């Protein structure tokens, strides 16, 4: 499958590496090319400098043929805007994003956006560890 990832932080770079390792075609975007240092030397995908909330950049990243789009930048609102562009403008079949703020995540889930809040997930995990 063809996947476009927005944000080459630790999570983005790791996901890109994992998907690439499984033979998927990966393009990863970041606004700072220094972030691409996180990609391993074995990475076969494409690293593209640009803003994933910009339609032109998304087109260059091949969003029109993408099977999935993932937004994992540090900023919730940028992630939310980018996945909505991917879903509603480019009709990407599968979109996923990270939203740190649990309340915002809930709202966007009700609007049909698949979003995960690491805040909730990790807090829950820590609680379970401590109580076990």
């Amino acid at each position, binding site marked *: 499958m063809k996947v476009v990832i927005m944000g080459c932080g630790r999570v983005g770079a790791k996901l890109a590496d994992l998907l690439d390792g499984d033979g998927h075609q990966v393009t990863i975007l970041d606004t700072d090319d220094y972030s691409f240092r996180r990609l391993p030397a074995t990475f076969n995908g494409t690293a593209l400098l640009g803003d994933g*909330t*910009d*339609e*032109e950049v998304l087109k260059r990243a091949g969003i029109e043929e993408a099977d999935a789009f993932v937004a994992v930048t540090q*900023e*919730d*609102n*940028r992630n*939310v*805007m980018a996945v*909505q*562009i991917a879903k*509603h*403008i480019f009709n990407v079949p599968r979109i996923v994003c990270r939203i740190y*703020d649990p*309340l*915002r995540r809930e*709202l966007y889930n*009700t*609007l049909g956006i698949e979003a995960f809040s690491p805040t909730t997930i990790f807090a829950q995990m820590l609680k379970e560890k401590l109580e076990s």
Partner: protein
Amino acid sequence: MYIIIVGGGKVGYYLSKALLDEGHEILVVEKDADRSEFICNELGSVCIRGDGCEAATLTEVGTGRADMFIAVTGDDEDNLVACQVAKHKFNVSRTIARINNPKNEAIFKKLGIDVTVSSTNIILENIEEEVPTHPLTHLLNIRDKGLEIVEVKIPPDSATAGKAIRELSLPPDSILSLIISKERKPQVPTANTVIQAEDQIIAVTPPEAEEALRAALRGA
């Protein structure tokens, strides 16, 4: 009207001032503590410090009873999310977002924002009006109808000067609504109206027919 404004920068500040003068009840949500304090000192207690994209902040300021919600921060994505939260969580009927990148206008509309204001586009339109040689000037977009009101000036040496409107091959969806002559006399045009050099013609047209309209009126 109760109006909530997200973003207390220059746009937010002067907008609040103007709306207060008009007698509206307003509340500004601003992230920065110093800026928030400045607005309270200048305009009275109309500003709270907080994130206008957070549901908790918006509950606190009574977004549920707001008649209008305006997001004017410098970041398009923040304005989008603030308006979406207001619309979908608090059912505010009128949401307005400031846009910095003109390309986002269509995207925001598609994502349910009622009104978008692009300062870049407004400045561009004003520049068009100020440049006298500009063949076609955008005066107004008719929201949600896909039409715009434009102005075309007939140059002194135009091939269409002296011709009646029925002789021109105007695009089918464009309508000439008003002709203002050099002597400043406005006239509602008919098929027999003869175009004069230096007339100003106000027309309603879909954006795609703009180029054909300009060509038909200016004769080139």
